[in-house]
């Protein structure tokens, strides 16, 4: 199972999901109305590297992080 973290203002507990790529994660979230609002502005990291394609393979024990818009300083 891969772990999904919801960072910053997403403020949700992590979950575990049984997926092999990010397209499946997109499908997994499609009925979550509240999260849909955020997904349009969230970036996605796989094992702490930002990802730009849904085709990326997800292995068991991978960590996926959802990152809302940032503003440090």
């Amino acid at each position, binding site marked *: 199972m891969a772990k999904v973290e919801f960072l*910053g203002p997403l403020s949700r507990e992590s979950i575990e999901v049984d997926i092999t790529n990010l397209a499946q994660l997109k499908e997994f*979230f499609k009925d979550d109305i509240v999260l849909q609002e955020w997904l349009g502005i969230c970036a996605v990291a796989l094992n702490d590297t*930002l*990802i730009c394609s*849904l085709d990326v393979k997800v292995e068991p024990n991978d960590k996926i992080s959802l990152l809302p818009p*940032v*503003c440090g*300083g």
Partner: protein
Amino acid sequence: MMALELFDGPLHVQEITNRWFVDMCDKNYGAFIPFVGIVRDEDGISGLSFDIYEPILKNWFDSWQIKAKAQGAYLLMAHSRGDVPNHTSSYIAAVVSPQRKIALKFINDFVEDFKANAPIWKYDLVDGKRVYAKERSHLLIGAGLLK
């Protein structure tokens, strides 16, 4: 010495910048430029609050440190976690370099890229509550991938 330092609450600016200066002044750098960010009293806030995702922040910082070292420079950074009251500091970035122009260029580019890409979330503190500063925040690369 750690080049990236994270603290709970406001930064002790003098302790941090004094220590960095002492550590750096005998390394034969010609310029030391700290950028100190101070929380402004505006829009009725009592302060700011921050969440940090450390693994990606460290990767981001390390990639900048490699760039700096390639030009003979060196970067330092401190940032707050949690609540930071008005008129105190949440962020210090610094560069040392043998050359003035390289130091001036790095402090500009490093601070600007920090604002755009460091995985830190800012909240206004209003009536004791955290309000996500969504309008002032910046989309990261690949944002919207799962929409």
